């Protein structure tokens, strides 16, 4: 029951949202089966106690998605609160550096809160309100999903608790403070590896005990059905916009679309609207850490095998006995041993190609983009930049590489300073910084 019914028709007549709303295709394409399976992947591998709450979310989601009033409010917020649509930027200097194809950046970093994550939290918070839930909880790795959740909770006046691994709290201190400032409680998670997967475990445990009045805003296109489908639907604004913008600016579709993959939300959001454009190569870039052979990475699709974690069957980094392995990435948001089931299905169907960028390559890409375009990308997004640059270098100037710039790098300044501070301070001579 929506607390403030919105008259879609009047709303659209009344203001400037009509053209904006018209650009989005609301049809659900390539849907999973009724149980949430994408081919052999996905499903709802959840404890009994969660089965009914998940069914309620599924029912509420499909009802909302069919309701024009839901989209009127969602799209109004995406436009006037988040700042969509985000630009598609032809990065000419970066293209020149690559020396091959033209590189276009989808500027999700310019969204309110600084990453794509808010597309999803707006949608799910509206759903939570329709379902009459007063509290929201979420897991977070890099803190971007936590910030995006805390932000919408503040706006919708909902209580908010964010679960975050102790190790990530250390790595992403600025985001922790932002969440607290926004009124959320940030709860450290010490179990297991004290990173994103453990934060998910803890949020699930808390949700089981509180599902009566609490909604779990899952942060990526993984987890039990309906999350992979729902999170995808909320993020396809990225790819739908990018597709139209690319046609408008370049007169053609890109040759390659590239996104980094943690759980898969920014990747599925960018790539899915190109699913049926068979000439567009779709590339998912995983965290290569210290290298895929080092064992210290988070490349679930490239190195993992099918397994069951956090409610769905998908590729998983695990040992021979099914124990989930610790992962490593320079970026907290990619430091996750699983991956969304739809990407797994697309890989299996031959519709997705894989790539990986190491910590060092991501860090170098971050510096390059910063220096030549004046854009500081998130470390997560820097993986996509690194791989996109490599691909562009092999291509011709009439070709197009579309890269999802999923977030901005402000949150990573601590990490980057630790790694590069000396080097950069040293080069500034008497530049002022201590």
């Amino acid at each position, binding site marked *: 029951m929506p607390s403030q019914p919105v008259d879609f028709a009047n709303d659209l007549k009344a203001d400037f949202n009509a053209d904006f709303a018209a650009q989005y295709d609301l049809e659900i394409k390539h849907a999973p089966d009724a149980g949430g399976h994408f081919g052999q992947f996905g*499903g709802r591998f959840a404890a009994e106690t969660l089965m009914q709450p998940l069914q309620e979310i599924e029912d509420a989601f499909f009802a909302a998605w069919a309701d024009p009033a839901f989209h009127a409010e969602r799209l109004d917020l995406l436009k006037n609160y988040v700042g969509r649509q985000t630009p598609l930027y032809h990065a000419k200097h970066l293209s020149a550096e690559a020396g091959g194809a033209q590189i276009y950046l989808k500027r999700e970093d310019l969204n309110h809160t600084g990453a794509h994550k808010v597309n999803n939290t707006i949608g799910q918070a509206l759903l939570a309100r329709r379902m009459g839930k007063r509290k929201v909880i979420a897991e977070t790795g890099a803190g971007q999903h936590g910030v995006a959740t805390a932000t919408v909770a503040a706006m919708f006046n909902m209580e908010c608790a964010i679960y975050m691994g102790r190790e990530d709290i250390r790595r992403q201190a600025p985001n922790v403070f932002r969440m607290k400032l926004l009124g959320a409680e940030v709860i450290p998670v010490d179990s297991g590896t004290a990173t994103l997967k453990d934060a998910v475990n803890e949020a699930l445990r808390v949700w089981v005990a509180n599902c009566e009045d609490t909604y779990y805003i899952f942060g990526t296109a993984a987890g039990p059905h309906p999350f992979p489908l729902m999170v995808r639907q909320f993020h396809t604004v990225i790819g739908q916009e990018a597709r139209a913008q690319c046609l408008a600016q370049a007169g053609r579709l890109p040759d390659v679309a590239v996104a980094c993959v943690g759980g898969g939300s920014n990747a599925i959001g960018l790539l899915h609207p190109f699913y049926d454009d068979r000439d567009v190569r779709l590339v998912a870039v995983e965290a290569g850490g210290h290298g895929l052979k080092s064992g210290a990475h988070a490349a679930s699709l490239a190195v993992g095998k099918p397994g069951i974690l956090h409610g769905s069957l998908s590729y998983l980094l695990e040992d021979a006995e099914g124990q989930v392995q610790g992962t490593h990435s320079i970026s907290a948001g990619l430091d996750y041993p699983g991956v969304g089931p739809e990407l797994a299905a697309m890989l299996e169907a031959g519709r997705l190609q894989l790539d990986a960028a190491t910590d060092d390559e991501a860090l170098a890409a971050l510096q390059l983009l910063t220096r030549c375009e004046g854009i500081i990308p998130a470390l997560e997004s820097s993986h996509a930049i690194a791989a996109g640059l490599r691909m562009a270098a092999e291509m011709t100037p009439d070709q197009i590489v579309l890269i999802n710039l999923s977030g901005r790098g402000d949150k990573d300044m601590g990490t980057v300073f630790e790694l590069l501070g000396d080097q950069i301070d040293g080069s500034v001579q008497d530049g002022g910084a201590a």
Partner: protein
Amino acid sequence: MSSSRLNALFERCRSEDRSAVIGYLTAGDPNPELSRELLLTLAAQCDLLEIGMPFSDPMADGPVIQAASERALAAGTHIDDVFALTRDVRAAHPELGIVLMGYANVPYAMGFEQFAERAQAAGVDGVLLVDIPPEEGAICDAVLRAHQLDRILLLSPTSPDARIALAGEHGSGFIYYVSLTGITGADMGDIAEIHDKVAHIQAATEMPVCVGFGIKTAAQAAEVARFADGVVVGSHFVTTVAMADDPVAALQEAAADIATAVHQARGGDAG
């Protein structure tokens, strides 16, 4: 079509007008050697033993059983050890019901066929996989059945009638009723509500209905034992073992307390 051993034990309990005593420990906690002694100690007091397979990400468990899993894995417990411990318990207790409990990914990684074969060979009667609800049973049901392993399903306070029917259709052995909406080790739910729901489920299924999650004291065990077909105690035993200077003696005492309470629960004014 449940395993003859589980059938027999619930029938025995029914004929004695009592609830079954069901104990849980995580295999390999705190290490495989001591775990063997602990499992044997607990088995001696129980009608049915649930042996937990340690997992890196026990999402439905509270801090107590999470820690047990972490200790077991840190001590180098492998799935081979779980089967070896199970075999030893079976050898010592031919009548005991034995259920392996855990998360989907451990058997999935091994392959359900091999897992079921090894479980059967080790003397297991049933398998309870927390994160494989009836809807996802296609990945394991037929294989478990082929190896005479019961598929124990859970029901919870949030399960509506349709899900109770589903569990009746796909489950076998017994129904494990989770007494609270939460994780293992939380505080037990309201006894009247548990009673109502259990009675409702008992009316809807042929299977025995056992109650677990949150039962920590002999008094609570006795209350539940008045109406449930089985009483499951887990976190309480794991905590007892973890806190004790002499874990075997402490477990012996705690298990005897619970067993006595369950045995006497319907005998008048026991408490």
